[in-house]
Protein backbone atom coordinates (compact mmCIF):
# COMPACT_ATOMS: atom_id res chain seq x y z
CA UNK A 1 0.00 0.00 0.00
CA UNK A 2 1.08 3.53 -0.61
CA UNK A 3 1.59 5.56 2.58
CA UNK A 4 0.00 9.02 2.42
CA UNK A 5 2.46 11.80 3.03
CA UNK A 6 1.98 13.23 6.52
CA UNK A 7 1.66 16.82 7.68
CA UNK A 8 5.04 18.51 8.18
CA UNK A 9 6.80 16.51 5.52
CA UNK A 10 4.15 17.52 3.04
CA UNK A 11 4.47 21.20 3.91
CA UNK A 12 8.23 21.04 3.52
CA UNK A 13 7.95 19.31 0.17
CA UNK A 14 5.34 21.69 -1.05
CA UNK A 15 7.15 24.86 -0.15
CA UNK A 16 10.46 23.66 -1.46
CA UNK A 17 9.34 23.11 -5.06
CA UNK A 18 8.81 25.96 -7.53
CA UNK A 19 5.49 26.45 -9.27
CA UNK A 20 5.83 24.81 -12.69
CA UNK A 21 2.39 25.65 -14.01
CA UNK A 22 0.43 28.75 -13.10
CA UNK A 23 -3.17 29.23 -14.11
CA UNK A 24 -4.38 32.82 -14.11
CA UNK A 25 -8.04 33.71 -14.33
CA UNK A 26 -8.92 30.90 -16.70
CA UNK A 27 -12.38 30.74 -18.25
CA UNK A 28 -13.35 28.02 -20.70
CA UNK A 29 -16.39 28.20 -22.95
CA UNK A 30 -18.34 26.04 -25.35
CA UNK A 31 -19.85 28.77 -27.44
CA UNK A 32 -21.49 31.12 -24.97
CA UNK A 33 -21.65 28.69 -22.05
CA UNK A 34 -18.90 28.98 -19.46
CA UNK A 35 -17.78 25.62 -18.11
CA UNK A 36 -14.73 26.81 -16.22
CA UNK A 37 -14.99 30.13 -14.43
CA UNK A 38 -12.13 32.24 -13.20
CA UNK A 39 -9.69 29.58 -12.01
CA UNK A 40 -6.41 30.57 -10.36
CA UNK A 41 -4.12 27.71 -9.45
CA UNK A 42 -0.51 26.68 -9.16
CA UNK A 43 1.05 23.30 -9.77
CA UNK A 44 4.45 22.70 -8.25
CA UNK A 45 7.30 20.83 -9.78
CA UNK A 46 7.79 17.24 -8.70
CA UNK A 47 4.34 16.88 -7.21
CA UNK A 48 1.06 15.13 -7.79
CA UNK A 49 -2.07 17.26 -7.60
CA UNK A 50 -5.51 15.69 -7.60
CA UNK A 51 -8.55 17.52 -8.91
CA UNK A 52 -11.75 16.26 -7.35
CA UNK A 53 -15.38 17.19 -7.50
CA UNK A 54 -18.79 15.86 -8.51
CA UNK A 55 -19.42 14.84 -12.12
CA UNK A 56 -20.15 17.70 -14.46
CA UNK A 57 -18.26 20.24 -12.37
CA UNK A 58 -15.87 21.08 -15.15
CA UNK A 59 -12.73 19.36 -13.89
CA UNK A 60 -12.14 17.44 -17.10
CA UNK A 61 -12.70 20.55 -19.19
CA UNK A 62 -10.25 22.42 -16.98
CA UNK A 63 -7.67 19.69 -17.38
CA UNK A 64 -8.01 19.84 -21.14
CA UNK A 65 -7.29 23.56 -21.01
CA UNK A 66 -3.89 22.80 -19.57
CA UNK A 67 -2.65 21.19 -22.76
CA UNK A 68 -4.87 23.11 -25.14
CA UNK A 69 -6.97 20.08 -26.03
CA UNK A 70 -10.10 22.00 -25.18
CA UNK A 71 -9.84 23.97 -28.39
CA UNK A 72 -10.10 20.86 -30.58
CA UNK A 73 -13.86 21.16 -30.22
CA UNK A 74 -15.25 23.62 -32.79
CA UNK A 75 -17.03 26.21 -30.64
CA UNK A 76 -14.65 25.97 -27.70
CA UNK A 77 -12.48 28.85 -26.58
CA UNK A 78 -10.55 30.02 -23.57
CA UNK A 79 -9.72 33.30 -21.85
CA UNK A 80 -7.00 33.79 -19.30
CA UNK A 81 -3.49 32.42 -19.18
CA UNK A 82 -1.71 29.20 -18.39
CA UNK A 83 2.00 29.68 -17.74
CA UNK A 84 4.42 26.80 -18.12
CA UNK A 85 7.84 27.77 -16.80
CA UNK A 86 6.90 31.41 -17.13
CA UNK A 87 5.57 31.34 -20.71
CA UNK A 88 1.88 31.48 -21.50
CA UNK A 89 0.95 28.39 -23.50
CA UNK A 90 -1.84 30.42 -25.06
CA UNK A 91 0.61 33.11 -26.12
CA UNK A 92 0.79 34.20 -29.76
CA UNK A 93 4.28 32.77 -30.21
CA UNK A 94 3.36 29.34 -29.00
CA UNK A 95 2.69 26.50 -31.39
CA UNK A 96 -0.07 24.37 -29.94
CA UNK A 97 1.55 21.21 -31.29
CA UNK A 98 4.69 21.98 -29.33
CA UNK A 99 2.71 22.73 -26.16
CA UNK A 100 1.13 19.30 -26.32
CA UNK A 101 4.50 17.64 -26.57
CA UNK A 102 5.63 19.32 -23.37
CA UNK A 103 2.37 18.61 -21.55
CA UNK A 104 1.29 15.03 -21.96
CA UNK A 105 -2.15 13.56 -21.42
CA UNK A 106 -3.63 10.18 -20.59
CA UNK A 107 -7.34 9.66 -21.09
CA UNK A 108 -9.99 7.78 -19.22
CA UNK A 109 -10.19 4.86 -21.62
CA UNK A 110 -6.98 3.32 -22.88
CA UNK A 111 -6.46 4.42 -26.48
CA UNK A 112 -3.57 2.48 -27.97
CA UNK A 113 -3.32 2.73 -31.73
CA UNK A 114 -4.65 -0.66 -32.78
CA UNK A 115 -2.67 -0.98 -36.00
CA UNK A 116 0.66 -0.41 -34.24
CA UNK A 117 2.81 -2.69 -32.15
CA UNK A 118 3.59 -2.03 -28.50
CA UNK A 119 6.93 -0.45 -29.36
CA UNK A 120 5.44 1.63 -32.17
CA UNK A 121 2.77 2.91 -29.83
CA UNK A 122 5.28 4.07 -27.25
CA UNK A 123 7.33 5.79 -29.94
CA UNK A 124 4.26 7.35 -31.59
CA UNK A 125 4.87 10.76 -30.06
CA UNK A 126 8.49 11.06 -31.07
CA UNK A 127 9.28 13.57 -33.79
CA UNK A 128 12.32 14.66 -35.63
CA UNK A 129 15.55 12.89 -36.38
CA UNK A 130 14.89 10.25 -33.77
CA UNK A 131 12.29 8.73 -36.07
CA UNK A 132 14.84 7.97 -38.77
CA UNK A 133 15.63 4.37 -39.40
CA UNK A 134 19.28 5.00 -38.60
CA UNK A 135 18.44 6.05 -35.07
CA UNK A 136 16.73 2.78 -34.28
CA UNK A 137 18.90 1.97 -31.26
CA UNK A 138 18.33 5.35 -29.67
CA UNK A 139 14.63 4.96 -30.24
CA UNK A 140 14.55 1.53 -28.66
CA UNK A 141 16.32 2.94 -25.63
CA UNK A 142 13.72 5.66 -25.27
CA UNK A 143 10.92 3.12 -25.63
CA UNK A 144 12.48 0.94 -22.95
CA UNK A 145 12.95 3.83 -20.57
CA UNK A 146 9.37 5.01 -21.03
CA UNK A 147 8.03 1.52 -20.42
CA UNK A 148 10.15 1.21 -17.29
CA UNK A 149 8.83 4.48 -15.97
CA UNK A 150 5.32 3.23 -16.64
CA UNK A 151 6.07 -0.01 -14.77
CA UNK A 152 5.28 -2.02 -17.88
CA UNK A 153 8.68 -3.02 -19.21
CA UNK A 154 8.95 -6.38 -17.50
CA UNK A 155 5.51 -7.47 -18.71
CA UNK A 156 5.94 -6.53 -22.33
CA UNK A 157 9.67 -6.75 -23.04
CA UNK A 158 9.14 -9.95 -25.01
CA UNK A 159 6.06 -8.62 -26.75
CA UNK A 160 7.33 -5.36 -28.14
CA UNK A 161 6.51 -6.32 -31.70
CA UNK A 162 3.06 -7.64 -31.02
CA UNK A 163 -0.08 -5.65 -31.59
CA UNK A 164 -0.95 -3.31 -28.78
CA UNK A 165 -4.53 -4.55 -28.84
CA UNK A 166 -3.33 -7.88 -27.46
CA UNK A 167 -2.58 -6.32 -24.08
CA UNK A 168 -5.03 -6.32 -21.21
CA UNK A 169 -6.95 -3.17 -20.27
CA UNK A 170 -4.63 -2.27 -17.41
CA UNK A 171 -1.57 -2.90 -19.54
CA UNK A 172 -3.00 -0.79 -22.35
CA UNK A 173 -3.49 2.12 -19.99
CA UNK A 174 0.06 1.85 -18.73
CA UNK A 175 1.12 1.68 -22.36
CA UNK A 176 -0.65 4.98 -22.92
CA UNK A 177 1.18 6.40 -19.93
CA UNK A 178 4.47 5.17 -21.37
CA UNK A 179 3.54 6.68 -24.71
CA UNK A 180 2.92 10.04 -23.03
CA UNK A 181 6.15 9.80 -21.06
CA UNK A 182 8.27 8.97 -24.09
CA UNK A 183 8.32 12.57 -25.22
CA UNK A 184 9.76 13.56 -21.82
CA UNK A 185 7.01 16.01 -20.98
CA UNK A 186 7.38 18.46 -18.13
CA UNK A 187 3.79 17.91 -17.03
CA UNK A 188 1.58 14.83 -17.20
CA UNK A 189 -2.18 15.19 -17.13
CA UNK A 190 -4.39 12.21 -16.38
CA UNK A 191 -8.16 12.29 -16.75
CA UNK A 192 -9.66 9.59 -14.53
CA UNK A 193 -7.04 7.11 -15.74
CA UNK A 194 -8.22 4.16 -13.68
CA UNK A 195 -11.97 4.63 -14.11
CA UNK A 196 -12.24 1.71 -16.53
CA UNK A 197 -9.64 -0.56 -14.89
CA UNK A 198 -9.92 -3.44 -12.48
CA UNK A 199 -8.60 -3.02 -8.91
CA UNK A 200 -5.27 -4.71 -9.55
CA UNK A 201 -4.50 -2.58 -12.58
CA UNK A 202 -5.68 0.47 -10.69
CA UNK A 203 -3.21 -0.29 -7.97
CA UNK A 204 -0.36 -0.66 -10.43
CA UNK A 205 -1.17 2.68 -12.02
CA UNK A 206 -1.40 4.38 -8.65
CA UNK A 207 1.96 2.95 -7.68
CA UNK A 208 3.61 4.27 -10.78
CA UNK A 209 2.05 7.68 -10.25
CA UNK A 210 3.52 7.67 -6.80
CA UNK A 211 6.92 7.00 -8.36
CA UNK A 212 6.46 9.79 -10.87
CA UNK A 213 5.87 12.36 -8.16
CA UNK A 214 9.62 12.87 -7.75
CA UNK A 215 10.22 13.33 -11.45
CA UNK A 216 7.62 15.54 -13.08
CA UNK A 217 4.50 17.55 -12.38
CA UNK A 218 1.43 15.36 -12.37
CA UNK A 219 -2.15 16.55 -12.38
CA UNK A 220 -4.80 13.89 -12.04
CA UNK A 221 -8.55 14.30 -12.25
CA UNK A 222 -10.34 11.68 -10.23
CA UNK A 223 -13.77 11.07 -8.82
CA UNK A 224 -12.33 8.55 -6.40
CA UNK A 225 -11.51 10.32 -3.14
CA UNK A 226 -9.52 7.44 -1.74
CA UNK A 227 -7.38 7.45 -4.85
CA UNK A 228 -6.77 11.16 -4.45
CA UNK A 229 -5.76 10.57 -0.87
CA UNK A 230 -3.42 7.75 -1.84
CA UNK A 231 -1.67 9.36 -4.74
CA UNK A 232 -1.53 13.13 -4.38
CA UNK A 233 0.35 15.74 -2.31
CA UNK A 234 -2.11 18.51 -3.03
CA UNK A 235 -5.77 18.48 -3.94
CA UNK A 236 -8.17 20.91 -5.56
CA UNK A 237 -11.92 20.80 -5.04
CA UNK A 238 -13.94 21.90 -8.06
CA UNK A 239 -17.61 22.79 -8.02
CA UNK A 240 -19.64 24.31 -10.88
CA UNK A 241 -16.54 25.26 -12.80
CA UNK A 242 -14.80 27.10 -9.96
CA UNK A 243 -12.14 26.20 -7.46
CA UNK A 244 -13.71 26.07 -4.01
CA UNK A 245 -10.62 25.07 -2.14
CA UNK A 246 -7.05 23.94 -2.76
CA UNK A 247 -4.35 22.74 -0.43
CA UNK A 248 -2.32 19.83 0.85
CA UNK A 249 -4.32 16.68 0.39
CA UNK A 250 -4.52 15.59 3.97
CA UNK A 251 -5.65 19.06 5.04
CA UNK A 252 -8.36 19.20 2.38
CA UNK A 253 -9.68 15.85 3.40
CA UNK A 254 -9.40 16.00 7.17
CA UNK A 255 -9.67 19.73 7.89
CA UNK A 256 -11.47 21.36 4.96
CA UNK A 257 -12.04 25.06 5.34
CA UNK A 258 -15.13 25.39 3.17
CA UNK A 259 -18.36 23.68 4.16
CA UNK A 260 -19.03 22.56 0.58
CA UNK A 261 -15.66 20.82 0.52
CA UNK A 262 -16.53 19.12 3.74
CA UNK A 263 -19.89 18.04 2.38
CA UNK A 264 -18.21 16.50 -0.65
CA UNK A 265 -15.35 14.71 1.07
CA UNK A 266 -17.67 13.28 3.67
CA UNK A 267 -19.82 11.89 0.94
CA UNK A 268 -22.90 13.96 1.45
CA UNK A 269 -23.12 14.62 -2.29
CA UNK A 270 -21.30 13.85 -5.47
Amino acid sequence: MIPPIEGVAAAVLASAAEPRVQVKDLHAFYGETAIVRGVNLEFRDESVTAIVGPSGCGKSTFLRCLNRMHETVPTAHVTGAVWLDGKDIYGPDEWVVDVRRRIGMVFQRPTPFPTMTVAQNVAAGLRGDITRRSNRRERDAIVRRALERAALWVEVKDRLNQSASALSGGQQQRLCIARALATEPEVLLLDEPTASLDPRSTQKVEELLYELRSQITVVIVTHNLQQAARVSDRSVFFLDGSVIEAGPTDELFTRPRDERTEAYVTGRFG
Partner: protein
Amino acid sequence: MNNRSGADRAYAVFTTASAAVIPIVVGLVFIALAIAGWPALRQFGTSFITSSAWDPVAGQFGAAPAIYGTLVSSALALLIAGPLALGVALFLVEFAPGWLREPVAFAVELLAAIPSVVYGLWGIFVLVPLLRRYVMPFLADTLHLGNTPLFSGPAYVTSMLAAALILAIMILPYISAVSREVLRAVPRSQREAALALGATRWEMIRDAVLPYARSGLVGGLMLGLGRALGETMAVTMVIGNQHQISASLFAPGYTMASLIANEFSEATTPLHVASLMAVGLLLLVTTFIVNAGARWLVWQTGRSRA
Protein backbone atom coordinates in the same frame (compact mmCIF):
# COMPACT_ATOMS: atom_id res chain seq x y z
CA MET B 1 -58.97 -14.23 -34.23
CA ASN B 2 -58.57 -16.45 -37.24
CA ASN B 3 -58.75 -13.47 -39.55
CA ARG B 4 -56.02 -11.72 -37.63
CA SER B 5 -53.55 -14.53 -37.81
CA GLY B 6 -54.47 -15.11 -41.44
CA ALA B 7 -53.64 -11.52 -42.24
CA ASP B 8 -50.47 -11.80 -40.24
CA ARG B 9 -49.45 -14.85 -42.14
CA ALA B 10 -50.21 -13.24 -45.48
CA TYR B 11 -48.13 -10.26 -44.46
CA ALA B 12 -45.23 -12.46 -43.44
CA VAL B 13 -45.42 -14.39 -46.69
CA PHE B 14 -45.52 -11.21 -48.74
CA THR B 15 -42.50 -9.64 -47.07
CA THR B 16 -40.46 -12.81 -47.03
CA ALA B 17 -41.26 -13.51 -50.66
CA SER B 18 -40.33 -9.97 -51.61
CA ALA B 19 -37.02 -10.30 -49.83
CA ALA B 20 -36.40 -13.65 -51.46
CA VAL B 21 -36.83 -12.10 -54.89
CA ILE B 22 -33.40 -10.53 -54.58
CA PRO B 23 -31.30 -13.66 -54.24
CA ILE B 24 -33.56 -15.32 -56.82
CA VAL B 25 -32.87 -12.55 -59.31
CA VAL B 26 -29.15 -12.81 -58.70
CA GLY B 27 -29.27 -16.53 -59.26
CA LEU B 28 -31.39 -16.17 -62.37
CA VAL B 29 -29.03 -13.64 -63.90
CA PHE B 30 -26.09 -15.99 -63.49
CA ILE B 31 -28.02 -18.93 -64.84
CA ALA B 32 -29.54 -17.06 -67.77
CA LEU B 33 -26.24 -15.63 -68.92
CA ALA B 34 -24.44 -18.91 -68.41
CA ILE B 35 -26.99 -20.77 -70.48
CA ALA B 36 -27.00 -18.16 -73.21
CA GLY B 37 -23.26 -17.86 -73.34
CA TRP B 38 -22.39 -21.52 -73.05
CA PRO B 39 -22.36 -22.29 -76.77
CA ALA B 40 -19.61 -19.74 -77.32
CA LEU B 41 -17.58 -20.84 -74.33
CA ARG B 42 -17.85 -24.45 -75.32
CA GLN B 43 -16.78 -23.72 -78.87
CA PHE B 44 -13.82 -21.48 -78.11
CA GLY B 45 -12.71 -22.57 -74.68
CA THR B 46 -9.92 -20.51 -73.22
CA SER B 47 -9.19 -18.90 -76.57
CA PHE B 48 -12.30 -16.85 -75.96
CA ILE B 49 -10.34 -14.98 -73.38
CA THR B 50 -6.97 -14.99 -75.08
CA SER B 51 -7.76 -14.48 -78.73
CA SER B 52 -8.11 -11.06 -80.32
CA ALA B 53 -9.85 -12.27 -83.41
CA TRP B 54 -13.40 -11.03 -83.48
CA ASP B 55 -14.92 -11.76 -86.83
CA PRO B 56 -18.68 -12.33 -86.93
CA VAL B 57 -18.60 -13.27 -90.59
CA ALA B 58 -16.03 -15.98 -90.10
CA GLY B 59 -17.61 -17.03 -86.82
CA GLN B 60 -14.49 -16.28 -84.80
CA PHE B 61 -14.91 -14.60 -81.44
CA GLY B 62 -12.05 -13.68 -79.14
CA ALA B 63 -12.78 -11.20 -76.41
CA ALA B 64 -9.21 -10.36 -75.40
CA PRO B 65 -9.30 -6.74 -76.61
CA ALA B 66 -12.51 -6.09 -74.69
CA ILE B 67 -11.11 -7.65 -71.55
CA TYR B 68 -7.87 -5.75 -71.93
CA GLY B 69 -9.69 -2.48 -72.50
CA THR B 70 -11.89 -3.01 -69.49
CA LEU B 71 -8.92 -3.62 -67.24
CA VAL B 72 -6.83 -0.76 -68.58
CA SER B 73 -9.57 1.87 -68.58
CA SER B 74 -10.74 0.89 -65.11
CA ALA B 75 -7.26 0.72 -63.64
CA LEU B 76 -6.34 4.10 -65.04
CA ALA B 77 -9.63 5.59 -63.87
CA LEU B 78 -8.97 4.24 -60.38
CA LEU B 79 -5.46 5.64 -60.42
CA ILE B 80 -6.81 9.09 -61.19
CA ALA B 81 -9.96 9.04 -59.09
CA GLY B 82 -8.59 7.28 -56.03
CA PRO B 83 -6.27 9.97 -54.70
CA LEU B 84 -8.68 12.73 -55.73
CA ALA B 85 -11.56 11.06 -53.91
CA LEU B 86 -9.47 10.47 -50.80
CA GLY B 87 -8.36 14.09 -50.86
CA VAL B 88 -11.94 15.29 -51.14
CA ALA B 89 -13.03 12.97 -48.35
CA LEU B 90 -10.24 14.23 -46.10
CA PHE B 91 -11.20 17.76 -46.98
CA LEU B 92 -14.83 17.17 -46.04
CA VAL B 93 -14.12 15.30 -42.82
CA GLU B 94 -11.05 17.08 -41.45
CA PHE B 95 -10.45 20.48 -42.94
CA ALA B 96 -13.52 22.02 -44.50
CA PRO B 97 -14.92 25.03 -42.66
CA GLY B 98 -18.57 24.48 -41.77
CA TRP B 99 -20.00 26.74 -44.43
CA LEU B 100 -17.99 25.04 -47.21
CA ARG B 101 -18.62 21.46 -46.24
CA GLU B 102 -22.24 21.08 -47.35
CA PRO B 103 -21.87 22.76 -50.75
CA VAL B 104 -18.81 20.72 -51.69
CA ALA B 105 -20.38 17.49 -50.44
CA PHE B 106 -23.49 18.32 -52.42
CA ALA B 107 -21.49 19.03 -55.57
CA VAL B 108 -19.77 15.66 -55.29
CA GLU B 109 -23.12 13.96 -54.80
CA LEU B 110 -24.51 15.65 -57.90
CA LEU B 111 -21.71 14.12 -59.91
CA ALA B 112 -23.09 10.73 -58.98
CA ALA B 113 -26.57 11.67 -60.08
CA ILE B 114 -25.62 12.54 -63.66
CA PRO B 115 -26.78 9.79 -66.01
CA SER B 116 -24.15 7.91 -67.95
CA VAL B 117 -25.51 8.98 -71.32
CA VAL B 118 -25.15 12.64 -70.36
CA TYR B 119 -21.53 12.01 -69.44
CA GLY B 120 -21.13 10.36 -72.83
CA LEU B 121 -22.70 13.26 -74.64
CA TRP B 122 -20.40 15.68 -72.88
CA GLY B 123 -17.54 13.33 -73.55
CA ILE B 124 -18.09 13.23 -77.30
CA PHE B 125 -18.54 16.93 -77.85
CA VAL B 126 -16.41 18.52 -75.14
CA LEU B 127 -13.87 16.18 -73.59
CA VAL B 128 -12.69 14.38 -76.69
CA PRO B 129 -12.06 17.55 -78.74
CA LEU B 130 -10.34 19.03 -75.69
CA LEU B 131 -8.09 16.03 -75.44
CA ARG B 132 -7.30 16.00 -79.13
CA ARG B 133 -6.64 19.69 -79.45
CA TYR B 134 -4.77 20.43 -76.23
CA VAL B 135 -4.08 17.59 -73.85
CA MET B 136 -2.73 14.95 -76.21
CA PRO B 137 -0.37 17.32 -78.02
CA PHE B 138 0.73 18.57 -74.62
CA LEU B 139 1.52 15.07 -73.42
CA ALA B 140 3.13 13.97 -76.66
CA ASP B 141 5.12 17.06 -77.61
CA THR B 142 5.50 19.42 -74.66
CA LEU B 143 6.20 16.70 -72.16
CA HIS B 144 7.97 14.66 -74.80
CA LEU B 145 6.05 11.58 -73.83
CA GLY B 146 5.16 10.95 -77.46
CA ASN B 147 7.97 8.49 -77.82
CA THR B 148 6.82 6.35 -74.95
CA PRO B 149 4.49 3.50 -75.85
CA LEU B 150 1.75 4.86 -73.59
CA PHE B 151 1.34 8.08 -75.46
CA SER B 152 2.47 7.19 -78.93
CA GLY B 153 0.57 7.48 -82.15
CA PRO B 154 -1.70 10.13 -83.56
CA ALA B 155 -4.36 11.79 -81.47
CA TYR B 156 -7.44 9.90 -82.50
CA VAL B 157 -10.89 11.26 -81.98
CA THR B 158 -11.95 8.60 -79.54
CA SER B 159 -9.46 6.95 -77.25
CA MET B 160 -8.75 4.84 -74.21
CA LEU B 161 -7.57 7.99 -72.45
CA ALA B 162 -10.93 9.67 -72.93
CA ALA B 163 -12.70 6.62 -71.57
CA ALA B 164 -10.41 6.48 -68.54
CA LEU B 165 -10.93 10.15 -67.78
CA ILE B 166 -14.70 9.98 -68.04
CA LEU B 167 -14.71 6.87 -65.87
CA ALA B 168 -12.55 8.65 -63.30
CA ILE B 169 -15.06 11.48 -63.02
CA MET B 170 -17.92 9.02 -62.77
CA ILE B 171 -16.49 6.83 -60.03
CA LEU B 172 -15.03 9.63 -57.95
CA PRO B 173 -18.22 10.40 -56.00
CA TYR B 174 -18.68 6.76 -55.02
CA ILE B 175 -15.18 6.38 -53.68
CA SER B 176 -15.48 9.72 -51.95
CA ALA B 177 -18.78 8.88 -50.27
CA VAL B 178 -17.51 5.60 -48.85
CA SER B 179 -14.18 7.12 -47.80
CA ARG B 180 -16.00 9.91 -46.05
CA GLU B 181 -18.12 7.49 -44.03
CA VAL B 182 -15.12 5.39 -43.17
CA LEU B 183 -13.04 8.38 -42.05
CA ARG B 184 -15.89 9.70 -39.97
CA ALA B 185 -16.17 6.36 -38.22
CA VAL B 186 -12.68 6.65 -36.74
CA PRO B 187 -13.35 7.27 -33.04
CA ARG B 188 -12.73 10.69 -31.64
CA SER B 189 -10.61 9.11 -28.91
CA GLN B 190 -8.06 7.95 -31.48
CA ARG B 191 -7.73 11.42 -32.95
CA GLU B 192 -7.43 12.98 -29.50
CA ALA B 193 -4.79 10.50 -28.48
CA ALA B 194 -2.68 11.53 -31.47
CA LEU B 195 -3.23 15.24 -30.96
CA ALA B 196 -2.38 14.99 -27.26
CA LEU B 197 0.99 13.55 -28.26
CA GLY B 198 1.79 16.75 -30.11
CA ALA B 199 0.82 15.88 -33.65
CA THR B 200 -0.06 18.27 -36.43
CA ARG B 201 -3.40 17.61 -38.09
CA TRP B 202 -1.68 15.84 -40.94
CA GLU B 203 0.35 13.70 -38.52
CA MET B 204 -2.83 12.82 -36.67
CA ILE B 205 -4.41 11.74 -39.95
CA ARG B 206 -1.34 9.81 -41.02
CA ASP B 207 -0.79 8.01 -37.69
CA ALA B 208 -4.24 7.57 -36.20
CA VAL B 209 -6.94 8.03 -38.82
CA LEU B 210 -5.68 6.46 -42.04
CA PRO B 211 -4.30 3.23 -40.52
CA TYR B 212 -7.52 2.74 -38.60
CA ALA B 213 -9.65 3.30 -41.70
CA ARG B 214 -7.38 1.42 -44.06
CA SER B 215 -9.56 -1.56 -44.91
CA GLY B 216 -12.65 0.59 -45.39
CA LEU B 217 -10.74 2.90 -47.71
CA VAL B 218 -9.60 -0.04 -49.77
CA GLY B 219 -13.21 -1.18 -49.88
CA GLY B 220 -14.18 2.21 -51.24
CA LEU B 221 -11.57 1.89 -53.97
CA MET B 222 -12.86 -1.54 -54.88
CA LEU B 223 -16.37 -0.18 -55.05
CA GLY B 224 -15.15 2.46 -57.49
CA LEU B 225 -13.42 -0.24 -59.48
CA GLY B 226 -16.61 -2.26 -59.62
CA ARG B 227 -18.46 0.73 -61.03
CA ALA B 228 -15.77 1.43 -63.58
CA LEU B 229 -15.71 -2.15 -64.82
CA GLY B 230 -19.41 -2.11 -65.66
CA GLU B 231 -19.88 1.41 -66.96
CA THR B 232 -21.36 1.27 -70.43
CA MET B 233 -22.84 4.28 -72.14
CA ALA B 234 -20.26 6.95 -71.48
CA VAL B 235 -17.48 4.55 -72.39
CA THR B 236 -19.05 3.33 -75.59
CA MET B 237 -19.47 6.90 -76.72
CA VAL B 238 -15.84 7.92 -76.32
CA ILE B 239 -13.68 4.83 -76.58
CA GLY B 240 -13.95 4.20 -80.28
CA ASN B 241 -15.28 0.65 -80.20
CA GLN B 242 -12.39 -1.04 -81.96
CA HIS B 243 -11.39 -4.63 -81.43
CA GLN B 244 -7.75 -3.91 -80.82
CA ILE B 245 -5.19 -4.10 -78.11
CA SER B 246 -2.94 -1.11 -78.25
CA ALA B 247 -0.26 0.03 -75.84
CA SER B 248 -1.03 3.65 -76.50
CA LEU B 249 -3.71 5.43 -74.53
CA PHE B 250 -4.31 7.64 -77.53
CA ALA B 251 -5.69 4.73 -79.53
CA PRO B 252 -9.29 3.57 -79.51
CA GLY B 253 -10.25 0.28 -77.95
CA TYR B 254 -13.10 -1.68 -76.43
CA THR B 255 -14.48 -2.67 -73.08
CA MET B 256 -16.68 -5.64 -72.33
CA ALA B 257 -19.65 -3.44 -71.51
CA SER B 258 -19.28 -1.21 -74.55
CA LEU B 259 -18.80 -4.25 -76.78
CA ILE B 260 -22.13 -5.65 -75.75
CA ALA B 261 -23.85 -2.30 -76.09
CA ASN B 262 -22.40 -1.69 -79.51
CA GLU B 263 -22.94 -5.03 -81.22
CA PHE B 264 -25.87 -6.66 -79.53
CA SER B 265 -28.69 -5.21 -81.60
CA GLU B 266 -26.94 -6.12 -84.82
CA ALA B 267 -25.78 -9.58 -83.85
CA THR B 268 -27.18 -11.86 -86.53
CA THR B 269 -25.81 -15.32 -85.97
CA PRO B 270 -26.62 -17.31 -82.83
CA LEU B 271 -22.91 -17.71 -82.19
CA HIS B 272 -22.47 -13.96 -82.24
CA VAL B 273 -25.25 -13.55 -79.72
CA ALA B 274 -23.85 -16.34 -77.59
CA SER B 275 -20.41 -14.75 -77.66
CA LEU B 276 -21.80 -11.45 -76.50
CA MET B 277 -23.69 -13.25 -73.77
CA ALA B 278 -20.48 -14.94 -72.74
CA VAL B 279 -18.81 -11.56 -72.51
CA GLY B 280 -21.73 -10.47 -70.36
CA LEU B 281 -21.18 -13.48 -68.14
CA LEU B 282 -17.51 -12.60 -67.74
CA LEU B 283 -18.45 -9.07 -66.87
CA LEU B 284 -21.04 -10.30 -64.38
CA VAL B 285 -18.62 -12.61 -62.61
CA THR B 286 -15.89 -9.98 -62.45
CA THR B 287 -18.07 -7.20 -61.08
CA PHE B 288 -19.79 -9.56 -58.68
CA ILE B 289 -16.48 -10.59 -57.13
CA VAL B 290 -15.18 -7.03 -56.95
CA ASN B 291 -18.41 -5.65 -55.48
CA ALA B 292 -18.73 -8.49 -52.99
CA GLY B 293 -15.15 -7.94 -51.87
CA ALA B 294 -15.70 -4.22 -51.57
CA ARG B 295 -18.87 -4.70 -49.59
CA TRP B 296 -17.16 -7.11 -47.23
CA LEU B 297 -14.24 -4.76 -46.62
CA VAL B 298 -16.45 -1.80 -45.91
CA TRP B 299 -18.57 -3.90 -43.58
CA GLN B 300 -15.47 -4.91 -41.64
CA THR B 301 -14.64 -1.38 -40.58
CA GLY B 302 -18.28 -0.86 -39.64
CA ARG B 303 -17.82 -3.42 -36.89
CA SER B 304 -16.09 -2.04 -33.80
CA ARG B 305 -12.44 -2.66 -33.43
CA ALA B 306 -10.51 -3.44 -30.24
